């Protein structure tokens, strides 16, 4: 099988959905072992059009619709990967990946370890996740912790179009199985993208420098965090914003280096807070930066409720105001006694 060398490309304005489409297209072109399949990803091009045109270009043998069965999709992908292919499968929405949970936890995550490395499963499971698009129930779950807590899986989530391209390319090339979470409310955000693969899977990115407090976010809320940082700047607070990009493994180095400088940290995510990803981030910061912390690590997260209906989702999602309020609670006033 031939691997075509990467062609240098210039910047283009792309939405995240288009950047993902481009990544899939380039991966399909570069490596004939790559397959794309799932529900409605063929002729329709996916309900978010991320696979638009791929079936036409690469044929139904490589980009195809499956019967409606998520466990079936992941399970057959596992068999295909055992036989040398590199499936990139789509779960139509976050909550519709749950039927595949056993295949993901008991097989996908464990196969390499179980077989002493003989069998590897370079599979990417693409999952549009999270809310903010007025979706009805079961279409807006932030399910990252279910995967991040499962050893053997990589969990990756881009926050913008450029990362969407490069992280998806790297995920497809990864020898490890990757749960690739696409923040659906950013699908239509545009950006200048130089489609380049990069070589930083597993690393966080400092999106904005700052000295007073570190904001840690990923996926959909990264843009919110950047807006909050902008607003805080106006109020005279210098906020560093870190985009984690890789939830598993977690780049504690980048995060802790920042917090050791700023002395304060806030973690932001959409998923329910309780046992959410932010708990791990907060726990690691609290442990590794104990003597540097001027205030407890705080979390701005979704509420501990099932994802709410469209008309109420604004209360659930971390907002700029809620982030600013939380930053305000970071014990800036030396004279104020501790609240706890």
């Amino acid at each position, binding site marked *: 099988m031939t691997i075509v060398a990467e062609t240098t490309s210039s910047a283009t304005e792309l939405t995240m959905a288009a950047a993902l489409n481009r990544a899939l297209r380039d991966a399909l072109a570069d490596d004939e072992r790559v397959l794309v399949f799932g*529900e*409605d990803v*063929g*002729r*329709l*091009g996916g*309900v978010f059009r991320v696979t638009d045109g791929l079936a036409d270009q690469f044929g139904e043998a490589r980009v195809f*619709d*499956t*019967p*409606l*069965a*998520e*466990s*079936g999709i992941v399970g057959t992908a596992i068999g295909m990967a055992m036989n040398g292919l590199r499936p990139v499968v789509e779960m139509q929405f976050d*909550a*519709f990946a*749950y*039927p595949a949970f056993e295949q993901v936890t008991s097989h996908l995550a464990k196969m390499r370890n179980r077989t002493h490395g003989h069998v590897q499963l370079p599979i990417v499971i693409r999952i549009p996740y999270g809310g903010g698009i*007025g*979706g*009805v*129930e*079961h*279409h807006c779950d932030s399910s990252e912790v279910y995967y991040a807590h499962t050893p053997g899986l990589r969990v990756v989530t881009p926050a913008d179009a450029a990362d969407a391209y490069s992280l998806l390319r790297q995920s497809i090339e990864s020898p490890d199985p990757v749960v690739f979470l696409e923040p659906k409310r950013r699908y239509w955000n545009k950006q200048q993208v130089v489609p380049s693969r990069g070589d930083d899977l597993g690393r966080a990115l400092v999106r904005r420098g700052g000295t007073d407090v570190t904001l840690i976010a990923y996926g959909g809320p990264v843009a919110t965090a950047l807006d909050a940082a902008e607003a805080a700047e106006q109020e005279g607070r210098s906020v560093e914003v870190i985009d984690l990009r890789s939830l598993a493994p977690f780049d504690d180095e980048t995060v802790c280096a920042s917090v050791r400088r700023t002395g304060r940290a806030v973690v932001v995510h959409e998923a329910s807070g*309780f046992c959410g990803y932010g708990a791990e981030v907060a726990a690691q910061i609290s442990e590794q930066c104990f003597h540097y912390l001027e205030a407890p690590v705080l979390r701005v997260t979704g*509420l*501990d*409720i*099932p994802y*709410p*209906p*469209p*008309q*109420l989702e604004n*209360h*659930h999602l971390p907002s700029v*105001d*809620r982030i600013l309020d939380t930053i305000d609670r970071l014990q800036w006033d030396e004279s104020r006694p501790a609240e706890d």
Partner: protein
Amino acid sequence: MPSRTAATQAGTAAQGLLPTDVPISLIDADARACSDDDWKMPDELRLLKLYRGMVLGRRFDSQATALTKQGRLAVYPSARGQEASEIGAVLALRPHDWLFPTYRDSVAITARGVDPVEVLTLLRGSWHCGYDPYEHRVAPQCTPLATSALHAVGLAQAARMKGEDTVVLVMLGDGATSEGDTSEALNIAAVWNAPVVFFVQNNGYAISVPLAKQTAAPSLAHRGIGFGLPGLRVDGNDAAAVHACVSRAIERASAGGGPTLIESMTYRIEAHTNADDATRYRDQHEVEQWLARDPITRLRRYLLDRKLLDESKIDALDAEADTAAAQLRERMNADVPADPDELFKDVYAEPTTALRRQRAMIDAECRAGAA
């Protein structure tokens, strides 16, 4: 023990579980009565009820689609073209029976008596399930495909355990039959002999995916025999036939005969939802062929031919449907104040400390926002 005995039993038991070669039909596409010795035409009153239900259902459906264009509904999955299946099935239920509908079955739910505004709550986005499931014995509309088939089996079996004469009708799409849950439900229902009717509306597509990519079986009704329950196939655009099949399946279940699987052959005239573009994956020609098999026209012609209906009755019914639609439009135009306190109320029977704290935070934010 030895296999030949077992085999003979198997052969015998297999009798009656396979669907007929030709889907059951009582009124054909040309509105003529079909002769079928096994099935009886529903009586006049029933037929008129079916007609009325379909007319009201279609008007409701088109009104709902219109509401999406006005931004009053987030999304709406239309059942246009499937009225014979929706109404034929749901009108077979007795008051004590239960209906387990999907997102596509709003027409059936309203026909069961649920307030249409409550039905549309989910798609309007003010809450999830907008009605009290116990009031009309209608489960919440189910989105995670096939999952409700199991709930239906459980509810039906519980009714049997409690000595209640309750049959459960669960609606599924053709696509949903590929999910493991559907098969688990068929199997468990048959083992338990639960009073359930599995009603699969085979409308040809699961979003964009045609039936041929969904199954290689001779028919979906053939799935019954492998789980030990009878599979029937019915012309899903023939309200009389659907009604007859579902009625008999309900009688059978009620009499302790166990579950039935019914495949109702119909077609989704509109796109999957208003947000979908069906031209990407199917021919207009195909749609037109099915438009020619319209379930309402068909029953109307049949009833007109037999003078069970006349133009004035037709007009009166249309007017009734228009009035209902106008009322619905009006009521849906009223803004519903969504109360954030609701978010925390029913997560647990009693809100936890953490939820009380979170509610206080939201309350403070709302006050700050209002100030």
